[in-house]
């Protein structure tokens, strides 16, 4: 018990430190500008923050996959995880939007894409999809709030438009998840060939599904420890199967493309890109596929949790590889994030975790609520999430 209390204080103080550093860095960012607060430069105009936007949106992909499985394909087994999935997507998107605005050179002009249109721009399309999808997530999540405050009339209206909203949500998600990959189509000469592909949008779309589903498995684990809300193993192993299928498709797709475009020899060149690529493949594809096909682990909670953690790590590495590693050679400049970039990112993660915790504690996100008994330890547990992210 004493040891537990000690750890609790550790996580609490870690949170306080992250908050102080984060707020300090935000002040620097807005008073001194991007040059003073980031390691970005003319040759490396995009860094950690853009990568983190990709990661945040990708990990939130469970929001649309689970909503579609439960409410469009009417697979009732997954209904119980639809709400937590939508909530984590909602919070994920809010975080990404906040980070995008912080990253803008002129954040005061953030509303310009609403009135100044350029339909040829992938960035314009992404902006609109993110705005529309955030609105849809609001509709999808509204029942949780409306139930609590008993706004029954409004609840009825919301429930009526929900199926259409979910279908639109899947479409918007498909578009902008893939469009993050499309951002790099226009720089064929800059992206290292192992990552450049005219199918980049499809790679981004497929990989976000595996990452999103893994995120559900992982948060089920964290919530099980924090809120005593374990998921039943049928749902978990169902999700695991989903992850396996998607990972296998992506791996076969990736390698057959490397073969057909004659890039396969690059896999054996002595270069840092090669090692990063292999690390991504081994962490994010080979190991989780091995776990998920192993009869001993695939129906075992710990096995599934580990498969999820590996899939997510591989996913994070993939996105950072595309937006940092793959461009180092052509830019002729290396980049590592500044203290301010890192601490602002961690601060936003902290805020997201606290928001998730607050909503789960005060609204009925999980079915059959029996929280509050173990709320004391919850914070500590959720914050282990921070480590993994």
């Amino acid at each position: 018990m004493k040891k537990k209390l000690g750890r609790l204080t550790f996580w609490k103080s870690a949170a306080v430190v992250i908050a102080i550093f984060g707020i300090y860095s935000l002040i620097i960012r807005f008073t001194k500008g991007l040059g003073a607060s980031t390691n970005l430069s003319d040759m490396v105009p995009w860094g950690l923050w853009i990568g983190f936007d990709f990661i945040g949106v990708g990990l939130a992909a469970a929001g649309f996959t689970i909503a579609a499985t439960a409410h469009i394909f009417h697979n009732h087994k997954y209904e119980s995880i639809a709400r937590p999935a939508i909530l984590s997507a909602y919070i994920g998107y809010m975080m990404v939007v906040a980070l995008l605005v912080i990253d803008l050179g002129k954040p005061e002009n953030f509303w310009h894409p609403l009135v100044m249109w350029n339909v040829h721009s992938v960035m314009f399309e992404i902006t609109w999809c993110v705005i529309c999808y955030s609105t849809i997530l609001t509709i999808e999540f509204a029942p949780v709030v409306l139930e609590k405050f008993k706004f029954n009339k409004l609840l009825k209206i919301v429930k009526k438009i929900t199926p259409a909203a979910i279908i639109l949500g899947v479409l918007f998600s498909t578009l902008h998840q893939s469009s993050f990959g499309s951002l790099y189509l226009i720089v064929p000469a800059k992206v290292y060939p192992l990552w450049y592909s005219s199918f980049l949008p499809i790679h981004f779309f497929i990989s976000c599904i595996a990452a999103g589903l893994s995120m559900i498995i992982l948060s089920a684990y964290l919530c099980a420890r924090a809120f005593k809300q374990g998921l039943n193993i049928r749902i978990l192993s169902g999700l695991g199967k989903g992850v396996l299928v998607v990972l296998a498709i992506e791996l076969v797709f990736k390698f057959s493309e490397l073969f057909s475009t004659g890039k396969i020899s690059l896999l054996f060149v002595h270069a840092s890109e090669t090692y990063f690529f292999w690390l991504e493949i081994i962490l994010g594809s080979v190991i989780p596929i091995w776990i998920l096909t192993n009869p001993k682990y695939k129906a075992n909670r710990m096995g599934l949790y580990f498969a999820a953690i590996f899939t997510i790590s591989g996913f994070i590495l993939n996105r950072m590889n595309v937006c940092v590693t793959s461009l180092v050679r052509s830019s002729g400049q290396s980049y590592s994030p500044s203290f301010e970039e890192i601490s602002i990112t961690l601060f936003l993660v902290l805020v997201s975790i606290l928001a998730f915790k607050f909503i789960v504690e005060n609204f009925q996100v999980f079915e059959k609520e029996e929280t509050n008994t173990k709320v004391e330890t919850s914070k500590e547990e959720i914050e282990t999430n921070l480590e993994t992210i």
Partner: protein
Amino acid sequence: MSESILNIDNQFGLLFDASECIGCGRCYEACKEQNHLPATNKDFLKDHLSDKTYTVVEEYGDTYARKMCMHCLEPACVSVCPVGAFEKTELGPVLYDADKCIGCRYCMQACPHNVPRYEWGSVSPRVRKCNLCYDRLKKGELTACAEACPVEATISGKLSDLIAEAKRRIKENPDKYYPHIYGLEEAGGSNVLIISPVPLEQLGYSPKVPKQSMPTFTMQAMEKIPSVVSVGGLFLTGMYWLTKRKNQLVKEEHQTEEGQ
């Protein structure tokens, strides 16, 4: 995009001839003066493009090379900017509007020639680059750099005339030139053309720049959006009704079984 390549005949541009350039730096000085830019380096040959320097002269052995915005015919920056802060003008220059800009820096990431620079030190930073002296071109004047050049290494004029002039110089002096006009096809063509005595990659012009216009790389994905939306929408709506109906039938079956 099509509107930007409409009237190539009315467009102006620059021809830089590295065989003629003597490395005097007058173009560099003239550009600074024209754009009211502060001094950035005592030795102009060691300067580099920045938010305060829109063109540079670089030394490669005894050959000099100029770097600046190429003013592509179908510019990547114009196509990627989410708010349309870049514009390909009818006269050729690619212009930037800081009032529209949100500062996403996609233009910098997308530019095949790595040209746009950013005011990193500012709290309301702008993208900075050569504007091909748009105001002077409109008045029928030469660009500041071309006017300043004492040896016709940089000349400005109608794009079609410049192409003809570049071809003429190469044809008449085949020993003096490497037979390639950089910018004629690179990135789908640009209003700035470069000819040189040596292969252009030896002067720091990237040989990796594709020959096709950059926006086409994005269009092949963007043009699929309407079909993804319509086919996807139909499929999902169909699945919604089908699976709902299926579940209903299963339920009814159970009920009738229980009834019996």
